[in-house]
């Protein structure tokens, strides 16, 4: 059978991926440049029996998806920088209460209301540390529509697997770009469903007692079991506790469930990396410029490759270290003041060989921008 092809925006590719993954509930508040995600889902979700709610603000949207997730639904919300800031408190709650949910942040210029219609990648560290306290998070990204689709499916899968919020960190340039998407057939990509408890009705259900593999089976809230959910440190029944052992065990569990699985969560692509002397590390729409540049320089015989990160958090430190070990220089290409670069510097043997090629003016970084810096590093001038 012929594949179904669409010519759509990146935001719409995210919607297609979410629907493929089985999203059943969306609550949100529209904000440029993410609005198309809400707009499309407001039409598509009711068509298939799902629920779409436009809430009064971003805080309420985040809280609504947490509630819906607890009742057993696959949920998401979408926003941009200012809204992402507002959602942080509830994201922390979802981390603490271990509630699967997907938050798309289509980045625009910041801080504050910043630059609504222009591109930025300035929320990278906010995705990691936007909410307070020790916690872990998963953040994914993509640079083309096919990958936006599959990484969105992955986001839902990882949210369910690790019972955690997963951030989709897209950007204005890729969110609004129109290009081809070939829809995968049903069954082509794996889908992780909700892991539900086998504890029967009337039997003591302990929502925060991990199985041997560390996963926590859930019970649809309001159905068979009564249990407590809180943002306070809690025991295996979900009731607040300040017992030092309970507190440290829970925090350790929240950190370890992600840290111990960095290898299986890490997603990346290599472009022309074979024997690369100069390694460009990039993600999202910036990666397209890096790939364009590397492709052109390779044709001229220069050994330049691109390591494209599709998972930003947990930070793939070992991957970066390994892939950069033989590089003469590493150039981090991103549209912020070096938010990823500092982590790359910390990961490699020689931080002195890490450089930043960036733009912070709301314009998409160009292959010429990167080429200019490369020539300086190579001692060839611009």
């Amino acid at each position, binding site marked *: 059978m012929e594949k179904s*092809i669409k*010519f759509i925006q990146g935001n719409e590719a995210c919607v297609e991926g979410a629907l493929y993954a089985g999203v059943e509930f969306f609550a949100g508040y529209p904000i*440029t440049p993410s609005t198309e995600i809400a707009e499309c889902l407001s039409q598509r979700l009711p068509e298939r029996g799902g629920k779409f709610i436009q809430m009064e603000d971003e805080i309420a949207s985040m809280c609504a998806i947490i509630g819906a997730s607890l009742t057993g639904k696959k949920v998401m919300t979408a926003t941009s920088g200012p809204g992402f800031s507002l959602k942080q408190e509830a994201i922390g709650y979802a981390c603490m209460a271990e509630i699967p949910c997907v938050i798309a942040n289509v980045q625009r210029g910041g801080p504050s209301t910043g630059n*609504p*219609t222009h591109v930025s990648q300035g929320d990278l560290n906010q995705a990691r540390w936007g909410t307070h306290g020790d916690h872990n998070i998963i953040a994914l990204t993509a640079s083309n529509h096919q990958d936006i689709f599959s990484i969105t499916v992955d986001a839902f899968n990882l949210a369910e697997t690790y019972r955690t919020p997963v951030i989709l960190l897209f950007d204005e*340039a890729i969110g*609004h*770009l*129109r*290009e*081809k998407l070939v829809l995968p057939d049903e069954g082509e990509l794996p889908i992780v469903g909700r892991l539900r408890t086998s504890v029967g009705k009337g039997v003591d259900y302990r929502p925060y007692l991990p199985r041997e593999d560390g996963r926590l089976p859930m019970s649809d809230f309001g159905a068979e079991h009564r249990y407590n959910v809180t943002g306070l440190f809690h025991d295996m029944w979900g009731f607040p506790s300040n017992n030092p052992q309970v507190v440290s065990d829970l925090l350790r569990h929240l950190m370890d469930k992600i840290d111990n699985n960095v290898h299986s969560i890490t997603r990346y692509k290599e472009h022309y990396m074979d024997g690369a002397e100069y390694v460009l590390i990039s993600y999202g729409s910036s990666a*397209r*410029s890096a*790939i*364009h540049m590397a*492709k052109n320089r390779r044709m001229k015989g220069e050994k330049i490759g691109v390591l494209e990160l599709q998972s930003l958090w947990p930070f793939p430190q070992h991957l970066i270290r390994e892939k950069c070990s033989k590089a003469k220089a590493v150039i981090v290409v991103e549209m912020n003041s070096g938010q990823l670069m500092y982590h790359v510097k910390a990961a490699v043997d020689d931080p002195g060989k890490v450089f930043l090629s960036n733009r912070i003016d709301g314009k*998409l970084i*160009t*292959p*010429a921008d990167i080429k200019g810096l490369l020539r300086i590093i190579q001692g060839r001038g611009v």
Partner: protein
Amino acid sequence: MRTRIVFSGSGGQGVITAAILLAEAAVMYEGLNATQSQSYGAAARGGATRSDIIISDFEIDFPLVSQPNILVCLTQHAYNTYGAIVRPGGTVITDTRFVDIGKKVDARQIELPIYENVMEQIGKPIVFNVAVLGALLGIEPVLQKESVFKVIADRVPEDFIEMNQKAFEIGYKLGSEKMAEIMGR
């Protein structure tokens, strides 16, 4: 083959819609790759608008256009701003009602009375953008016009398909006749 096109004009002229129709036709009905992006301000109408399209047999990485093969300018402001970026030897298409070509650029400059013809024959400025698209394909056969017709049929409400097709043909005729005239010289 790689064609880089820039559509420029003012918000509300349908610049972005025309760009989408063209890029979508390339992908959906000609099996090509295409990207379409746009830059715009926060205003819904009146702001300067630009849309970049790349159509290619190959993968497209960087989606913006620095030197278009074909540049369409639908306001004086757009022509003044972008006129100089056209690739040397490329084509600049302007509408005589909106653009006064002052300084010439190193490209084939084609001025057509598209708006005037649309108003005379249809009387509705809403299809001006589709007529411009017709003119573009009449001048540079980047795609089959049937592919654009199919996209129009996919996207436009049924009652308006015929009007859009007519607008397209008006532009197409102006463009192809102009080309015949240039070639015949």
